[in-house]
């Protein structure tokens, strides 16, 4: 069982990463990653939604007929998102205002319905929750990495606007690199989002390529052993 969970984690965080491999949930991913904090905020909201929706979908999986499966799932997700939206509006209003339309749009974040359909609808609650968590964490990871990179290149800062999420004390968290850096606007404009994600995927491919190169050498005896056994 634990191996199972390990596989789920690895899937969510790396091998089957929502953003880098499945290319789902791209809209918020690209739209709100102008800064690290924005990415973090939306990432957490999405993570929460994923966990809750996976849990509820898995819990009711035996009760829904195929023709209304999608409407029901969508209803559940929409309710969860609306609740999260209101909570954010109430408790982190600054972030709420910046993320704007992309909070309700978590509903249509393809990764959520995709997980509901392909995992939660077929598995018991606990694995579904873990899957939701891992998938969400993988997504969150990409959001903050992309947000961080774009902020760094675009403005030369990191953690700017943290106070939106962590309150006034966080105003001093902003890290500024290289005074007099003029900023490279491409990174924060829409094209930069696409190109940035493209580069991230290429980076992942690079790591995998190196890994397989190492592996093919190592793996061969293992295969032989198993076949002779």
């Amino acid at each position: 069982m634990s191996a199972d969970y390990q596989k789920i984690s690895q899937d969510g965080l790396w091998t089957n990463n929502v953003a880098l491999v499945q290319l789902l949930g791209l809209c918020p991913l690209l739209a709100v990653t102008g800064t690290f904090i924005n990415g973090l905020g939306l990432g957490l909201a999405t993570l929460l939604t994923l966990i809750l929706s996976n849990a509820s979908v898995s819990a009711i999986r035996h009760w829904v007929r195929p023709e209304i499966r999608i409407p029901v799932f969508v209803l559940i997700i929409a309710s969860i998102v609306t609740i999260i939206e209101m909570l954010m509006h109430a408790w982190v209003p600054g972030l709420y205002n910046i993320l704007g339309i992309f909070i309700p749009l978590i509903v249509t974040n393809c990764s959520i319905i995709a997980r509901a359909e392909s995992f939660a609808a077929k598995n018991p609650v606990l694995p579904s929750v873990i899957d939701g968590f891992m998938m969400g964490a993988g997504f969150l990871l990409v959001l903050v990495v992309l947000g961080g990179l774009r902020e760094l290149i675009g403005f030369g800062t990191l953690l700017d606007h943290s106070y939106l999420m962590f309150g006034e004390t966080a105003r001093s968290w902003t890290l500024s690199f290289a005074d007099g850096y003029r900023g490279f606007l491409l990174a924060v404009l829409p094209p930069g989002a696409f190109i940035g994600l493209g580069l991230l995927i290429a980076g992942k491919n690079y790591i995998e390529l190196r890994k397989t190169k190492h592996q093919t050498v190592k793996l061969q005896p293992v295969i032989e052993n198993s076949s002779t056994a």
Partner: protein
Amino acid sequence: MNRQVLITALVLTLFAAIGGGLVSYTEQSTASQIRVNDKMMLLHSLKSLLPAQRYDNDLASSAISIAPHQLLGTTKTSRAYSATKNTDTVAFIFNVIANNGYNGKIYLLIGVYTDGSIAGVRVVRHKETPGLGDAIDENRSSWILNFNQHSLSSLTEKQWKVKRDGGYFDQFTGATITPRAVVNAVHNTLLYYQQHKAVLLQATTKPVSPKE
């Protein structure tokens, strides 16, 4: 067959009801906090225009509605806020639109003391070219603070222009249009205030409900 249809409808209804119930519940429990937040947000931007010691009223609930006017660049009824200290009106804050920005409208909040001098100017929303026209944003440069304290009397009509046009205010290198538009809007607001001062002061004595 009919049974199947009914079950389908029932299941969907059930989930809708559960979802709706949860959402409604959350709405009720967060509604007041959300209202507080929204007001705080508004207050936050209004406050940045006036030093705190200059007024003592609740700015956000002192809104008056203003008919559309060319000098304010508005085409719909807009809102202004009045600041009072000890029930004396000390300043007005106008929602102003500069229509001739480089890439479109520039939305401004402009605070004017009752004596006709500028309390502060802030950009609310704009589409000017990043890296060029966006220096009007307080986050990007302090250019916008140059207006503070100026009035129709402190600068002549000719000086209410950017330097390239022979006026008092700097332009940005490579961008004249945006500052020109903002200077123009501020100047127009002062003119508007000059023309409507009496009406405005009267209006504040009987506050309009902010709902309007």
